[in-house]
């Protein structure tokens, strides 16, 4: 339809290309990386839930039994406290096991929890190999290596995140530090450390599982009891990692989340990548 605009279709230099519409994307994540990324969720969840059921059988952190409740376990204390302070839980039947009933496969489930833990653990190790294969084949490992020059950028990003609540409250425009790499330095550090933590979780797991035949491995972590402490706090680290990982992944927007499903991203200008995802 003719509008007031002069028709200049024939003289448009991009006319030929305009007839064949195109879209530009960049490849961000290798297929194997994406598969292992999503499989980690059920496996880690299974390991944590069964792990806390196993922990229940003999908690690492114990104190002298409380004279009134008889509890010697801090998780049991937490359950008793929760049931005493949350009105609708006042009549909860078994306050000492509240945490285990809600944060694990349940108490008195050691045999089942152990099998469940072994199943998830073997699958997680397999999953880790798939992840490493994806990083190698896709070349993505280069983007994950922290660099010596990252220290400044890590601090810049940390300051940005810590200052974000104030910036928003003060109704100022947050200024995101710019980096010309796939990930920002803080992301790089986080992803690298979480991969190392995954390796350590497997290593400490074996150290606890086979302290006789793999006694050298148990010795590396300071003996059987210390290896259990390592294993416990590595779980804590994964939980601490997951919270900002999910919050920032969602906050960063649809393209970032989609790229972990499809593998590609429409953000390919250097200024567009490495926004606030973590």
């Amino acid at each position: 339809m003719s509008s007031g605009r002069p028709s200049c279709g024939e003289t448009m230099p991009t006319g030929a290309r305009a007839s064949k519409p195109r879209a530009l994307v960049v490849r961000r994540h290798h297929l194997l990386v994406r598969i292992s990324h999503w499989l980690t969720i059920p496996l880690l969840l299974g390991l944590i839930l069964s792990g806390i059921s196993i922990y229940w059988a003999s908690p690492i952190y114990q104190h002298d039994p409380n004279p009134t409740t008889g509890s010697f376990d801090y998780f049991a204390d937490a359950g008793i406290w929760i049931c005493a302070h949350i009105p609708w839980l006042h009549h909860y039947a078994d306050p000492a096991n509240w945490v285990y009933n809600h944060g694990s496969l349940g108490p008195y489930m050691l045999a089942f929890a152990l099998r469940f833990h072994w199943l998830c653990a073997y699958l997680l190790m397999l999953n880790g190999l798939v992840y490493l294969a994806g990083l190698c084949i896709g070349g993505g490992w280069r983007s994950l290596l922290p660099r010596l020059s990252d220290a400044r950028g890590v601090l810049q990003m940390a300051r940005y995140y810590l200052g974000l609540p104030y910036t928003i409250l003060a109704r100022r425009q947050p200024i995101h530090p710019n980096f010309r790499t796939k990930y920002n330095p803080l992301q790089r550090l986080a992803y690298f450390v979480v991969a190392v933590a995954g390796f350590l979780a497997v290593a400490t797991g074996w150290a606890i599982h086979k302290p006789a035949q793999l006694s050298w491995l148990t010795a590396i972590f300071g003996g059987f009891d210390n290896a259990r402490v390592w294993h416990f706090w590595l779980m804590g680290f994964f939980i601490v990692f997951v919270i900002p990982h999910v919050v920032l992944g969602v906050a960063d927007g649809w393209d970032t989340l989609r790229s972990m499903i499809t593998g590609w991203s429409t953000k390919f200008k250097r200024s567009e990548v490495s926004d606030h995802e973590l």
Partner: protein
Amino acid sequence: MSFKQIGAELKSTRRSALLKKFQGAFSERPIEPIEVEPSTLRRWTRRDVLLFGAGALATLAVGGSQLPRKLLNKALRLDDDVSTVLYSQHHLVPTYTKSQITPLKNNYNGPTPDPAYIPGWRLTLDGLSSGLAVSLDIEALLARHRIHDQITRLVCVEGWSAIAWWSGLRFDDLLHAYPPVSQAKWAYIESSVNLDANGNPDPYFVSIDLLTAQHPQTLLATHLNGKPLTVEHGAPLRLLVPVKLGLKNIKAITRITYTKDEPPDYWAKRGYSSYDGI
């Protein structure tokens, strides 16, 4: 510029080129945009992902709670196979000094048996190459065999462990003194004095593969921390097998039967591993 200088400069450029090549292998590659059909960009909509995610969550919840027992059994068997491969008769478990000894709790599942059985206690051996059953008292066992001392760690399936000083005869010495039938691969070890949670007789029994029985640190222990075993720790004779979990370290042994096929095991019947190698 002298030739020397030129040569030195060439050398340094070559060196820096090599260094660059080395660093280049680790540095991020530039990402090249690729062309795709614009329809590709629309293929993964937010709604698709939400639906897909909801479906995945539902599958996870149902699959997780209805996890086939077969799969869990398979994981347990795989883990037992791994343990069997890791086992080495020549690998000794770590030993400790007397200053490292820790308290050892009585973990009898039911009440501790009445010590009245101790004076009339006898050990019966069956499945011998002689075809006859042998009945031994504790004096006979102590008089005929060399006593070995070891300070090793007892690791419970629940997660706690204790370092204790054990003395007793080597299981391997008993195997030499009273050889089992030639096809025997297993020892079925029983304690008839064990009680269940209500205090009723509930014989305890474990399966031990003969390769483990032959391990130099596998003892038929008679003493704990330099004193004869008390009823809490399985007087007068218990199995001390530091390459297995504590539950295989059967107390107050009354009978050992050598078998060709794998015998039943008290805790394996209740969902735990049957090999329990650590």
